[in-house]
């Protein structure tokens, strides 16, 4: 299935892009992060991140469906 993935901050720099359509068989955001880490060498571990699906915070074990928009959220630093 095809997912839309957006990257921010450190992860945008490590992926070398701010978004992409990505063909995957990953069932969950956790599986997807493992797959993308093998591809891009992300240095942040999953324990350091949160994940959003369709612009809302999500569990790592949620079942992904075609067309979902996924954003991995590195440690935040607003203010």
């Amino acid at each position, binding site marked *: 299935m095809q997912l839309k993935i*957006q990257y*921010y*901050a*450190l992860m945008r720099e490590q992926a070398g892009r701010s978004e992409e359509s990505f063909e995957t068989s990953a069932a969950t955001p956790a599986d997807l992060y493992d797959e993308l880490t093998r591809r891009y060498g992300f*240095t*942040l*571990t999953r*324990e*350091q991140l*949160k994940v*959003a699906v369709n*612009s*809302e*915070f999500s569990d790592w074990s949620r079942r992904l469906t075609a067309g979902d928009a996924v*954003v991995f*959220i*590195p*440690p*935040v*630093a*607003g*203010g």
Partner: protein
Amino acid sequence: MRFRFTQTAIDTTQARRELLDLGAGGYVSFEGWVRDHNEGQEVTRLEYEAFQELAVKEGERIVAEALRRFPVKHALCIHRVGALGLSDMAVWVGVSSAHRGEAFDACRFIIDEVKHRVPIWKKEHYRSGDSGWVNCERCAAAPHHTHAHA
């Protein structure tokens, strides 16, 4: 909108006006400024970026929580994104209320929650020529740090 982003300087005069209320006896604001040092490094400039779609939702939830939790009249938070120089204002929080105590409390609550929960990232540029994403590079080096996770 009680939480919003701006690409340009935060207009505090306009923002304050949005909090006016005949029942308010005062107002408290907080301004976050770009500081010239962090963690022993000399900072020369910053860049902020946000996942705005979710950040606005989460920011709105924080202000709504503050309004439920504290008996205040109005509250508003504005965060800047983009390139900022030293002493530029990165964030502004304002709260009006009948009495000062709850205005201070609500203002403190909002800025603390925004720092911990809203998907905004800060890249610092240092005099040494290095740069780094705050809370990210050190996390990568020392994964046991959890301070940035709400």
